[in-house]
Every structure is written in C-alpha cells, then in structure tokens.
C-alpha cells in the first residue's frame, strides 16, 4: 500500500531519511503546482531523481526547496536508471546547505526591500508575511493582523481564479485609520501601510519601482 500525504505535514528531508534508514527500494512522487518530481530509492540509497528539467542530484536539490505538495511513496518500485551515486547522507547535507544559503540571501533581500519601502514618502510601516499569516520580517504585527492580511490576499487570489485572471498585481484597502497595500512577493506577501492623506495613484508608482 502506498504512503500518501502532504509535505506540509512531513518534510521531504524526513521522508528521504525514513526511506534510506529503512533501506527501502521505493519510488517517491511529489506533486506541487501541477508539476511532478520523483525520487527513486534502491536498497536505502538515493539512486535517481527527476524534476523537470533536471535529472540526478540537481533535481533532488531543487525538490528539497518544496515546503508543500502532495507526496506518494510506492514501495518495491525499482529505479528506471541510476543517475545518483553519492551517499544519501552527503546528498541531504549538501541539499540543506544550499537551502540555507538561499534562505540567508532571501532574508537580506527582504531587509533591503523593506528599508527601501520605508524611504517612500507616505509609507508608515512595511513588513513581509507568509501565506499562512505568519509575520516574517519588518514591522512586527500581531498574529491576528498578519492572519487578516493573509486572508485578504487569499480571498483575492480565489476571486481572481473566478475572473480567469492571475493573482492581482496589488490590493489596496482603506479603513478609517489607514490605507493598506498588499503585494505578492516571492511566495510571500509584502504589506505596506500608508498614511490616509496620500493618494494611491501618487504613492503606488514609487512602491512599484522599489518592488520591481
């Protein structure tokens, strides 16, 4: 019987470790955003990986970036070819090292972006939250506030699908106290609070220039 689940609940490095330590021969398939990746285990070693357009170690390293997606492990399936010969321990260490390096680079990108946004006239606060409503960088928000903004963004994404459009370029909400702008970043949401006296049309070109 196949083991199925989501990478949100069981991380890919843990799944790999499990199959290797159990000395499994198996096929692990991951589906994320309509794209499929596969890792083949042969007697507890990673023998082959495919993640379009890559094959071998590069495919495996790219798959380690996936933090969500459906997975299926089918035991007893042999690899169609051998594209990897490095020991699984070393592969995982190298993959996680690459992942850390990217995350550090992302962090400094976010910090640079937020400091540039704070220099735009009219911007009171700027921050980055993830899709699950967790504050990542910048102005610290309450859990409720971050969840609210993520929910607004998610509702906008859902209605975009109904209109047969991509996710919106940006969302602006005006309440009594402030104007809030939500812009999609790389898997994240950039949130910007603007003083209400500033018109959207005046501030937005500068913000778009910073976001790029």
């Amino acid at each position, binding site marked *: 019987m196949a083991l199925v689940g989501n990478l949100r609940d069981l991380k890919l490095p843990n799944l790999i470790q499990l199959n290797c330590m159990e000395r499994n021969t198996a096929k692990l398939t991951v589906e994320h955003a309509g794209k499929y990746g596969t890792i083949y285990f042969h007697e507890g070693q990673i023998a082959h990986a495919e993640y379009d357009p890559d094959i071998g170690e590069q495919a495996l390293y790219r798959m380690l970036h996936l933090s969500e997606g459906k997975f299926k492990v089918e035991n007893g399936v042999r690899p169609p070819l051998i594209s990897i010969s490095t020991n699984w321990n070393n592969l995982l260490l190298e993959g996680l090292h690459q992942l850390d390096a990217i995350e550090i680079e992302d962090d400094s990108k976010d910090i640079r972006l937020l400091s540039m946004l704070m220099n735009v006239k009219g911007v009171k606060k700027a921050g980055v939250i993830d899709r699950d409503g967790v504050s990542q960088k910048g102005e610290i928000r309450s859990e409720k506030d971050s969840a609210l903004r993520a929910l607004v963004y*998610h*509702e906008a994404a859902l209605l975009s699908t109904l209109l047969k*459009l991509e996710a*919106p370029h940006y969302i602006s*909400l005006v309440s009594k106290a402030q104007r809030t702008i939500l812009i999609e970043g790389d898997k994240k949401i950039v949130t910007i609070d603007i003083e209400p006296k500033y018109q959207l049309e005046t501030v937005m070109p500068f913000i778009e220039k910073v976001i790029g």
Partner: protein
Amino acid sequence: MGNRWLSEITDINGVEGVILVTLEGDVIENIGAPADLHVIERIARHIMRMIAAYHKLGSDVREIELVWQNYRLLVMAAGPLALIIFCRSLRTISLLRITLNVVLAHLSEDKKTMKKINKHAARGERLLKTTDLDQLEINLISKLQ
C-alpha cells in the same frame, strides 16, 4: 430606482459592470457584471469576507481595490451595502470614485433599495463561518478569534 443610479456608474468609460451587494455578499442589483450570476455571487462573497474579517478585528473597510495588469475591481462600502465595480480602464478612476460616492449616498436614501438590503441585514459574520471555506481560509479565520 436603484438601477438608474447604477447606470450612472456603468456609463463611465472603462466600467464593464457593477453590482450592489449586502454585507453578506447577496447580490441585490447587477448591471453588466462579466460572468454568470452564480460566479458573481461567489466573487461578491470573497470580497465581503475581506470586509467581514476586518470588521471582526474592529475596523471598517470603506474601499477596496484589486488591481491586475489590465483589469481592476473597485469596491465601495457604506453602512449595510457595497458596490463592486468591474473596470477595464484606469483612466477614469477619479471620476469613478466621485460618482460612486454620489451614488452610494443616493442609494442609502432610496427606500426601495434599502428595503431590499434590510431584508438581508447582517454584519457579514456568516461569511466567516460557512461550510464552503477551504482549509487555508479556515486556518486564517481561526487565528482571528
């Protein structure tokens, strides 16, 4: 009577359609909205869920804009009603905002419109509790409690 005021909006260059909705996302009037009614109703519910979520945290949203490359949705809310405008052009946005304020003021005083709206009088909290929410919506709404 309501429709006459909505026509003032659709007469503006670039406006594709307009709907008048309650805080719970029920469509009361519709002129030219670019999809079938059941799709428009779903769009209205997504928008009004944003407003309901803000209200839940004690803040009233009076205007929302969703901007795509060549499309824009403008939402103006006032009291128990909201107007959702589907636009193809951004050139007349200032004129559109002024017109919307005028139309909202007139609709709020129009007895026939308000009678229809008041039939559905509610603060929209139902939109945060319905069964047709996806898992992410459920997770995020639970964090608002």
